[in-house]
């Protein structure tokens, strides 16, 4: 069973890696976009596993984008390397801000993170000499000269890395710490868990991921502006995808982003006008009728069959 799982995972990685050889540039671009949202969704979900609802996703995404693009523009840093500078910059900002705002809880934390993204936008718009203000900045060329295959591989490896981090969170003591914190902070404290330390750790790691994705996205287009870097879609779509797929897991956001991401493109082709309305209705329906997401529903069905199997076993 375990062997099967490993073979399956390897198969997915190989197929994912060879994907560009099977499809044309358009589907490849769609999948690259899906992977971008998947990574953002996973990072948002990882923070949610601690019980903290963050609306800062787009904020750290944009910060990473600016840090990556501007270091390439001004300092001539290799674009691929600059992506990690984007991640590092987002991590440093998250560390400093986290010290202050991780004392907040629930809606207060959520609103503060939302406000932060707004503040970043205003700063980017007004630091004219550095960021180019509202018009933004443009690089002479996109990363890999805009080669869609290499750009896909870049996002593919970033996604793999994020999935790996998410699974490490799920399989080590981190899972015990953050699940305990989410369920009951008083029990967690009384059992020796340093809540603040873990919240800060997860906040910094997830912000770094968002910064890396933002850096990659900015380099993909060789362009950045406040409106593109801090767009609401980088906050709301990943959340919708997680809710559709199922929260508190690695698989849920992955499934959700693939289904909603592909669906969104398909709807665009079917209904060039009004596709977003249908998309919105589908998201609302998913959240209303599958409160635990697609994965949650699958688990429920599986559990029912397993319980039945157990009952049968006990009867024997």
């Amino acid at each position, binding site marked *: 069973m375990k062997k099967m799982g490993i073979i399956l995972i390897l198969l997915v990685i190989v197929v994912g890696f060879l994907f560009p050889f099977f499809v044309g540039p358009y589907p490849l671009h769609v999948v690259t976009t899906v992977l971008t949202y998947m990574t953002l969704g996973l990072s948002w979900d990882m923070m949610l596993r601690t019980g903290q609802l963050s609306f800062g996703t787009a904020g750290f995404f944009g910060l990473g984008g600016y840090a990556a693009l501007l270091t390439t523009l001004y300092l001539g840093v290799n674009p691929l390397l600059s992506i990690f500078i984007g991640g590092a910059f987002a991590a440093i900002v998250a560390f400093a801000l986290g010290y202050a705002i991780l004392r907040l809880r629930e809606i207060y934390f959520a609103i503060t993170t939302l406000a932060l993204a707004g503040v970043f936008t205003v700063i980017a718009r007004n630091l004219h000499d550095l960021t180019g203000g509202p018009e933004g900045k443009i690089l002479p060329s996109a990363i890999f000269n805009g080669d869609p295959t290499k750009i896909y591989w870049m996002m593919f490896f970033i996604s793999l890395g994020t999935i790996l981090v998410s699974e490490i969170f799920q399989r*080590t*003591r981190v899972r*015990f*710490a953050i*699940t*305990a914190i989410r*369920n*009951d902070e*008083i*029990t*967690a*404290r*009384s*059992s*020796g*868990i*340093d*809540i603040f330390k873990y919240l800060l750790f997860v906040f910094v790691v997830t912000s770094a991921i968002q910064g890396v994705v933002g850096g990659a996205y900015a380099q993909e287009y060789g362009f950045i502006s406040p409106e593109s870097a801090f767009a609401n879609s980088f906050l709301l779509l990943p959340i919708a995808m997680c809710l559709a797929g199922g929260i508190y897991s690695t698989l849920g956001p992955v499934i959700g982003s693939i289904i909603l991401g592909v669906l969104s493109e398909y709807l665009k082709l079917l209904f060039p006008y009004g596709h977003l309305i249908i998309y919105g209705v589908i998201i609302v329906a998913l959240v209303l009728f599958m409160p635990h997401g697609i994965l949650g529903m699958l688990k429920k069905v599986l559990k029912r069959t397993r319980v039945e199997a157990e009952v049968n076993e006990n009867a024997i």
Partner: protein
Amino acid sequence: MPFEAPILSVENLTKRFGGLIAVNSLTFEVERGEVLGIIGPNGAGKTTLTNVVSGLYTPSEGRIFFRGEDVTYLDAHQRCRLGISRTFQLMRPIKEFTVLENVMVSALFGKGLDLKSAKEKAREVCDFVGLKRVNIPVESATVLELKKMEIARALASDPELIFLDEVMAGLNVDETNEMIETVKRINSRGVTVIVIEHVMSVIKELTHRVIVLDRGKIIAEGSYEKVSHKPEVISAYLGEEE
């Protein structure tokens, strides 16, 4: 014999909630290895005292020393790691975890073990308190099992001092007797035990010494036989005569 500091020493401890003084300038010591009972009518400040000493509340005034070390401003998780453990009167299990995983949490973080040793440690303490079904989700555990799980969780961090906040409440006679034996075995492991309890027979059976609280103050202290005959204790429990 070298001088040994008491395991717990509390000086002028006060906890106010707005205008309400829940714990009022308490001073007492707990000797290593003893079983101390804390009794008193509802609202006397027993649970507040537990919360302040275990670190969930910061005291309004006063100091707390553990093994001679000032722990007044340490957070609950730091005190847990130092060796102060507690159970909750209103049980607070982590509902997404199994019984064993609940116990593992404090072995992992209170004692700082890795996953594998924490699992072994959790199995050991579950066995010690007589928990047999450990791989079941918390929601299918019985009240007795949950109470045992609370104690197991508190023990898994290898504490030197443990607060048991009304662990006998709601148990029948057989279950209570089993629990009394468990507490005795915890104490014979070398753990200092503070029992907060309403059931007097339990206090009589278990404790070496009793502190009686009323409205946040100590009104009597001594052996159970001694305090149970004091008129102020009787009037605190039964109400004063008109």
